[in-house]
């Protein structure tokens, strides 16, 4: 049996320990190595560093945020107060104005097709509501004629109440006012609606507040859908509508870039990354699990996260420019939330954050594509004065010619784009009860005689 002398034994142990330490040293240095920032990331970061909202922009932002102020309060002051409460802890003791009670008493949702037959019988009641609630129309006008609201890019709005319901109700009230005005002076009513739509488009294209943008997208589709249903029901209004709605001829495409919203989202994401670096991921993201500093160093790569986010956002902007066609937008909107290729075990925290951002981005893409298509097809139908034979075979969307399809049975006019969420994603409903064609053909083929 061979024995090892004491000095040799210690030397062997020292070598083994040194080797293990070297291996761990290499492994840890590899794990903690940061990739470089990409050129794209640097561009996005440069944009994020430039942002400083002007006073005017803040005014519109506060007007939007304080839209639900009680009647005696100024919406702008109310919105500013609300925002300060959120961002400035020193203002914590400020007393917020009491929330307004919200009830209009319109006979039904005037934007819905089902409401149209009810309107004639209830026009007096609608007029009473309009007189009583006129202040909300004034408030809406004030907001829409201001600059598009731009939120500061340092603070998220998750905890700030957004007056979604009140804004939606005010837009609904505005439609009621168009209906009422059209009874007296259709030309003037549609000229006013034209101005309203122009302002709405400016806000939709310019705001960087995702929630407000999303609300305006819904409002735009509701208003266009209502307009189509209204002139279908009241063909005598068609002429006044199509001649006064010049916005449809001048701006037949919505073309609302995602850039303002994405710029702000990127700046906010970077602010979150800063907090992860300084306060640790558990505090910065408010996780219920504490992550040790060592683990954070191993599974958090800020640069890789910024690169991945910048890549996703740049891809989204590129896609929405239409340069690659519509199918890649649909594919991106459906496949991005499930992209496993963006995951890296060395950047698990960043991967999870990017995953969440991609899910939001996918929703933005879907909503934007559907709104663009809906506005385009409704504008085209109105321009063709409801005469489908006058419609072109293709319509331009993001500069791409898209075939127009008619689903005769369901009375839908659609753009031929792969579906995202529903059969009516890219369709205008023209359905009139009792008028669907008799499509049925014998299920058995005729027998040859």
């Amino acid at each position, binding site marked *: 049996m061979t024995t090892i002398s004491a000095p040799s034994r210690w030397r062997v142990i020292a070598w083994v320990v040194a080797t293990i330490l070297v291996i*761990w040293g290499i*492994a*840890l240095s590899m*794990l903690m190595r940061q990739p470089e920032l990409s050129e794209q990331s640097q561009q996005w970061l440069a944009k994020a560093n430039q942002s400083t909202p002007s006073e005017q922009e803040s005014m519109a932002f506060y007007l939007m945020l304080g839209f639900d102020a009680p009647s005696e309060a100024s919406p702008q002051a109310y919105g500013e107060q609300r925002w300060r409460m959120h961002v400035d802890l020193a203002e914590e003791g400020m007393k917020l104005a009491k929330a307004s009670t919200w009830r209009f008493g319109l006979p039904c949702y005037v934007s819905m097709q*089902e409401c149209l*037959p009810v309107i004639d019988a209830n026009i007096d009641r609608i007029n009473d509501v309009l007189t009583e609630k006129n202040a909300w129309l004034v408030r809406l006008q004030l907001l829409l004629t201001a600059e598009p609201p731009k939120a500061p890019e340092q603070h998220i709005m998750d905890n700030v109440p957004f007056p979604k319901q009140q804004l939606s109700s005010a837009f609904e009230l505005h439609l009621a006012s168009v209906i009422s005005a059209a009874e007296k002076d259709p030309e003037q009513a549609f000229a006013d609606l034209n101005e309203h739509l122009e302002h709405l488009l400016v806000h939709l294209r310019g705001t960087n507040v995702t929630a407000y943008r999303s609300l305006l997208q819904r409002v735009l589709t509701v208003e266009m859908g209502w307009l189509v249903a209204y002139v279908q029901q009241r063909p005598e209004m068609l002429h006044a509508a199509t001649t006064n709605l010049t916005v449809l001829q001048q701006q037949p495409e919505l073309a609302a870039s995602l850039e303002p919203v994405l710029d702000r989202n990127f700046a906010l994401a970077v602010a979150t990354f800063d907090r992860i670096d300084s306060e640790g991921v558990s505090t910065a993201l408010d*996780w219920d*699990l*504490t*992550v*040790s500093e*060592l*683990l954070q160093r*191993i*599974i958090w790569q800020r640069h890789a996260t910024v690169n991945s986010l910048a890549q996703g956002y740049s891809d989204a902007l590129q896609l929405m420019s239409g340069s690659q066609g519509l199918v890649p937008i649909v594919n991106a909107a459906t*496949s991005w*939330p*499930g*992209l*496993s290729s963006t*995951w*890296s*075990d*060395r950047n*698990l*925290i960043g*991967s*999870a954050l990017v*995953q969440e951002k991609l899910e939001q981005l996918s929703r933005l893409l879907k909503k934007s594509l559907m709104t663009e298509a809906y506005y385009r097809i409704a504008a085209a139908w109105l321009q063709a004065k409801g005469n489908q034979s006058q419609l072109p075979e293709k319509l331009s969307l993001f500069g791409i010619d898209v075939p127009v399809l008619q*689903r*005769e*049975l*369901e*009375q839908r006019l659609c753009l031929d784009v792969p*579906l995202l*969420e*529903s*059969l*009516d994603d890219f369709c205008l*409903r023209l*359905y009139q*009860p*009792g008028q*669907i064609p*008799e*499509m*049925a*053909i014998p*299920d058995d083929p005729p027998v040859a005689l």
Partner: protein
Amino acid sequence: MKSLTCLIAVAATLLLTGCGSDLLVVQRLQSLKPEPQQAADAPAPDVDDWQGQFEFAESMLEQGKPLAAVHWYSKCANGGHLPCIRQLGYAYMQGGAAGHDPYLGLELLTQSLDPEDAGMLNDLAWFLATSKISALRDPEQANEYIQQLQAMATLDAMSTDTLAAVAAALGNFAEAAKVQQQAITMLLKEGEIGEDMLTDYRKRLQLYRNNRMYTE
């Protein structure tokens, strides 16, 4: 392989440095990783093959792809294929992948009605008697459908429940309550029923006893 090595190194480091609880974080983050994308669908049927399109739509539905299913139902429905019109009608009634358009849905179902299909007669009678949208309700027509069904087959618990709803929609609440009681008895006899269903039947009975109709 590289990522596995990485994970092993991370896990070993954490264990050796006494940060075993961090493994929970790693596990949670790993679980957020999306599954790889599913394989593409089978080749689509020909443009004029309505029956093929119907079968394709049915298979999409079985695979849990309602959007693809309604897309194909719509195609063959616009070709005039009755089973497709029927399915599309149901889809518009229910909303979801087809969008909610009960007026159109009801019209499609009426157009594609097979008078010998007991299930359809029952469904149509139910819709027309219980729709939340008053403009869609047509108790007289609902009564005709349920009478047709009664003449054709013996009513089971479900169609007796419909019969009671129709009676209530016509304002015959005493009769509705009596029929609903029969429906409950039949339901209990039929067995293998869920507690929720029984509760619903009983709630409707209470409504009829209070001279109120049921809508949904």
